[in-house]
């Protein structure tokens, strides 16, 4: 364990120069562009896309759990809400994917705040129960409001997104699209994490009494944390809908919420690389271990218990975040002058 810690510390202390960053960026772009040509198997490409979707979802849930410090077990409700609203707007009104997604993301953000409002005063464990319940209510709503959601049958034939006249329909195109989303999400989270706003949220998460003593409005940050996380989840829900081409309530069952929480906890609460790691591990591993699929839940459970005992903060914990980044960013361009 100590060796792991030392290794993480070394990784943490590495700082890249502008040139190294540039080369890394070019390599990354090269990798992404060439990936669909290397991965010719559509099934594997599908798994890669799923990993990306879950990476973003884990980031969005981590925003709520890891940054704003609220243990939500109903994330699937926000994810599903985004998927359904976008789908309904696209199929009922013929709206294009992008405006529909903006609307559904905004609406879900607002709804997330409403969901958070009455729970602000509750202790973490009560909040978990309430959000869990809400996820179930939402699924029942999807199943039973047949006139709106078509019930258990789901909504098929969701149109593909169109951007500047180009229709995103092939697996390859979807791969590029999701890769772009992952990059946007990671850049957003990184900048958020090192901003004054993000640092204030870390304070709220760690110690709300200290936060108020520093003039931080705890409620505001909890609400905004839920709103941001909810919006991000809704965005991914929208992507999922157009990618799959059909959605149904079974995609948004409570096991999905648990899966996302597992990804957050396994990867690292409040950690960006951790979120991606957790999502990729728990999406890819079950595929690799197809033969043992009956034992999947048992393996999940055992993994969680082992993590809780040996590394409760996750594989890549929050403490491996870049330190003093706010200052370093502030002085980056300054030294040259």
């Amino acid at each position, binding site marked *: 364990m100590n060796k792991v810690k030392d290794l993480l510390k070394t990784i943490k202390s590495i700082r890249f120069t502008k040139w190294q960053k540039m080369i890394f960026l070019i390599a990354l772009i090269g990798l992404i562009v060439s990936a669909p040509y290397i991965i010719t198997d559509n099934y594997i490409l599908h798994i890669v896309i799923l990993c990306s979707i879950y990476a973003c979802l884990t980031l969005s849930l981590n925003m709520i759990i890891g940054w704003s410090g609220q243990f939500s077990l109903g994330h699937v409700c926000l994810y599903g809400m985004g998927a359904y609203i976008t789908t309904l707007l696209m199929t009922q009104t013929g709206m294009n994917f992008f405006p529909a997604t903006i609307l559904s993301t905004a609406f879900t953000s607002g709804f997330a705040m409403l969901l958070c409002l009455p729970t602000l005063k509750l202790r973490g464990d009560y909040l978990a129960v309430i959000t869990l319940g809400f996820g179930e209510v939402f699924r029942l709503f999807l199943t039973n409001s047949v006139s709106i959601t078509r019930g258990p049958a789901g909504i098929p034939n969701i149109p593909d997104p169109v951007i500047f006249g180009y229709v995103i329909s092939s697996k390859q195109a979807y791969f590029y699209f999701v890769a772009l989303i992952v990059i946007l999400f990671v850049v957003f989270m990184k900048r958020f994490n090192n901003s004054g706003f993000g*640092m204030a949220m870390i304070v709220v998460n760690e*110690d709300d009494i200290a936060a108020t003593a520093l*003039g931080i409005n705890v409620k505001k940050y909890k609400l905004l944390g839920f709103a941001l996380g909810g919006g991000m989840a809704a965005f991914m829900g929208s992507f999922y809908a157009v990618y799959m081409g059909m959605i149904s309530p079974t995609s948004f069952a409570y096991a999905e919420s648990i899966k996302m929480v597992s990804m957050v906890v396994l990867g690292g609460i409040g950690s960006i690389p951790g979120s991606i790691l957790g999502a990729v591990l728990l999406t890819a591993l079950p595929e690799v271990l197809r033969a043992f699929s009956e034992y999947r839940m048992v393996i999940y459970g055992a993994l969680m218990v082992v993590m809780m005992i040996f590394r409760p903060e996750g594989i890549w914990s929050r403490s491996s975040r870049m330190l*003093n980044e*706010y*200052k370093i960013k*502030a002085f980056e361009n*300054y030294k040259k002058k």
Partner: protein
Amino acid sequence: MNTIIETKEVTIKFGGLVAVDSVNLVQKKGEVLSLIGPNGAGKTTLFNLLTGVYKCTSGNIFFDHNKITDLKAHERTRLGIARTFQNIRLIKSMTVLENVLVAHPDCQNESLLKSVLSPGKANKKRREVVDECMELLKIVGLEEMESEMATSLPYGKQRLLEIARGLATKPKLLLLDEPGAGMNNFEKEELTDVIHYITQEMKVTVLIIEHDMKFVMGISDRIIVLDHGQKIAEGTPAEIQTNPRVIEAYLGSGEFKDEEDK
């Protein structure tokens, strides 16, 4: 006229226990006021009432002549009341510098949109904030430890860091809850210098809870003594030392004597 903080008959009850009982307190701007009393006298609870962590059961609090009884804790900080904690509450996952940065209003108010969409634009302001916070770290002598993790510092230094953090909120009044606890004599002298600097150069009024009598008598203009939630005495250090009620309260708990023995 130049009162910074005033309480009128402030009371708080926890179930049957009256932790603070009809306390009247007036502090003038620039005056160094100390709050002493045996353990469990209600000193920390009074701080929690002043800063809004607890709501008064009855009574009123005025800051700069404005009633703040119903304001929330973070609103009171914004008005200019900062504090340190008896049981240190630094942010564990942050460095020394970051702990001070997050207390700075301009850091907290940095627009999320700006820092996400064009971080370059946010940098000019950030530079000013960092410079200001480094100045504060210099005042408490921690500027060289800016990139250490806050909780890896020794106890005494953590208390100094809490002071710097309190100052970063740009307070008019700074409440120090046992700032000298866990410090050796040398560190306490440093602390005295820091407090003098804060009151004289930065024009921030301080209200101190402290157990070390030598320290209290040396630094205070005036002292208020609490016992069982009630104010039992008030006066200059000389008056307090000879006040029979104070001696009785402390003899009862045996603390006063201990301190003198040391």
